[in-house]
């Protein structure tokens, strides 16, 4: 049962370089849907447009084109409709040090959403809900935590507060934009486990944005890979990671650190195909004009060919697995 559908989502940013305005296409015709009780991961290198997608879904950034619909209805962008939308779609930010206002207490952070969305009948009810929220994210004793300010909490604790805040309006969709990348390795798992648990308890639809392929694989059912604003591959999580099709996904998978691979222990199921070392092209987003034609990965792609001068469409390679690459023109693995 899909909760949030996205169709043809586009975001162009106006850049000013050398006095001229250029359009930068940060997200290009992205379509996907989020379903209750499942996690979809969005992966890609830095600057590929992942956060922009999340921000558009959270209505922090206005899409240049495309539609977002909630329960099949196109969403409202202002007034009461917007508020209702925000009740349903909540976001957890990357930086727990930045997403909580250092000036306010934890209590304030949790009380505001309850107030704004009128989730509580009275103050006592509010207090009760705050306590429950904190307990749900394993922060106890709730009263003590509520009185603290962000700087008195560790990174992991802050991130839990941020999650509690996102849960306060009882949303149905949770957008988690790299929720653990700023945290210590040892705490990461906890937070991800927490989100996973809450997802199941509340039947949340979760969009998990990350650049960490391993956690993407472990915590989500589907994975979407973005490259410079474009969806280049999407499919079942294991399928995408273990049998990546798009040369870029392969490159990513090959680059991800994996101790098992090096030491050959623990029986890695399938060694990911290695890709020849690409030139030192730095990730950057080309202007709309530069993007107009051709495959964007062409310049770095070891398998680039003449056909790549035209932009490839998303081609299905297996059930629910699409790849934007001319290699899969005939619908099979080559």
């Amino acid at each position, binding site marked *: 049962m899909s909760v949030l559908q996205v169709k043809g989502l586009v975001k162009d940013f106006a850049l000013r370089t050398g006095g001229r305005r250029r359009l930068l296409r940060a997200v290009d015709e992205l379509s996907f849907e989020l379903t209750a009780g499942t996690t979809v991961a969005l992966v890609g*290198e*830095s600057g590929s447009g992942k956060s922009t997608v999340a921000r558009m879904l959270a209505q922090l950034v206005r899409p240049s084109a495309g539609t977002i619909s909630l329960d099949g209805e196109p969403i409202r962008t202002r007034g009461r409709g917007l508020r209702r939308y925000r009740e349903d779609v909540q976001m957890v930010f990357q930086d727990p040090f930045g997403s909580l206002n250092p000036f306010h207490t934890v209590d304030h952070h949790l009380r505001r959403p309850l107030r704004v969305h009128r989730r509580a009948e009275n103050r006592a009810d509010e207090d009760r809900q705050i306590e429950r929220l904190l*307990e749900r994210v*394993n*922060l*106890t*004793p709730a009263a*003590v935590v509520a009185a*603290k300010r962000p700087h008195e*909490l*560790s*990174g*992991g*604790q802050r991130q839990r507060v941020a999650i509690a805040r996102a849960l306060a309006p009882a949303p149905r969709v949770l957008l988690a934009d790299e929720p653990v990348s700023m945290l*210590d*390795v*040892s*705490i*990461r*798992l*906890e*937070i991800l*486990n927490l989100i996973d648990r809450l997802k199941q308890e509340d039947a949340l639809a979760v969009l998990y944005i990350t*650049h960490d*392929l*391993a*956690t993407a*694989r*472990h915590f989500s059912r589907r994975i979407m890979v973005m490259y410079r604003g474009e969806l280049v591959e999407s499919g079942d999580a294991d399928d995408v*990671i*273990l049998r990546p099709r798009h040369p870029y996904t392969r*490159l*990513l*998978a*090959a*680059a*991800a*650190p*994996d*101790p*098992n*691979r*090096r*030491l*050959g*222990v*623990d*029986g*890695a*199921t*399938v*060694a*990911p195909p*290695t890709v020849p*070392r*690409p030139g*030192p092209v*730095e*990730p*950057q987003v080309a202007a709309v004009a530069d993007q107009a034609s051709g495959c964007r990965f062409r310049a770095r792609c070891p398998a680039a060919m003449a056909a790549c001068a035209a932009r490839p469409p998303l081609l299905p390679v297996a059930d629910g697995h699409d790849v934007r690459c001319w290699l899969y023109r005939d619908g099979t693995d080559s």
Partner: protein
Amino acid sequence: MITDDPESSRSTPPPMRGPAEAERARAESAELDGADPVLPEAERGTPVLTVRGLSVHYETDQRVRAVEDVDLTLHRGEVLGLAGESGCGKSTLAYALNRLLRPPARVVSGSVTFHERDGDIDLLGLSGEELRLFRWKKIAMVFQGAMNALNPVLTVRDQLLDVLAAHEPDMAVPARTARCAELLDLVGVDPARLGSYPHELSGGMRQRVMIAMALALRPDVMVMDEPTTALDVVVQRDILRELSRLREHFGFAVVFITHDLSLLLEISDRIAIMYAGRIVEQASARRLLTAPRHPYTVGLLNSFPSLTGPRREMRGVPGQPPDLAVSIPGCAFAPRCPYRRAPCDEHRPELSRHGQTSTGLTACHAYAEADYGAPVPAALSRGEFRPVETAEEIET
């Protein structure tokens, strides 16, 4: 106290990569100008840097014991990984190695010795001009954010030249410039970029420039403090590859600091795990991965899923690291440790080799039956980490 790890001091470092990759690296290193000396085979594995009982405190209102009683030996040509939670003292240790600490940091005890062919240098005893000339020439350093480590108002060339001017004043100016170009070329950056300012370079390029700078004087040791944390995985991979290629060629030893254990496991020969200012486990990368000893190491290994391996249930290490301003009589990890027993709270476990069969060093009572009052828990030997509690109690 055990001072050395016989396993790694004896053997040559294991190959860093799978066979295919190694071959490619060898082919690449052939591209490097052949005139450069490569570390003589005989010298590989001899100690180059020894740290003994080093303690560094931040003398603020409350004394922060950032590094406590650390023993480490770095061998020529090896990669020593240093991992641990944020704030456990990794950077402090790295800075201490290069005498970069500033007040309120102070080395309260211990020694750092640099071993040269013709004698040892007491690093903590150096000062003034001696210290200046020692730096970079023997130990170079690559910092986390290259954007911040490069002076934003000087061109890449100027910053490279600075190193040469400071250490090789006799070198002719044109030769220096030529050398700069050479260095950039070495790390895979177009020498045309010499005239660029740092902000004109991408993150990966900046990091490469930093590495080029670190290489400028052919140091024996390179300390890298989270050199790739801010970078994209693909770029990170590139840089690491570059690094191992250069290391293969020049034979410098690397102290690699990161909290990304999976990365360390992949690239280091030996790994030291730090917790709350102390080293709690030290072993070869392989041993650490296959048979972690310390519960904290076990917990860390449980903290990241394998990219390609089977799915398994994983928990992180719940709880928070201790406040370093508070002196802890027992094991600092005890409050978070699922295998904790009474002695853990009372005596600090020594970093030692436990039993004849084991390799590496561990600071854990569980391996000293006499202290622990029980045999090594089976779950621990299996590498299981079952957190005591998941809820985080926050003290009032």
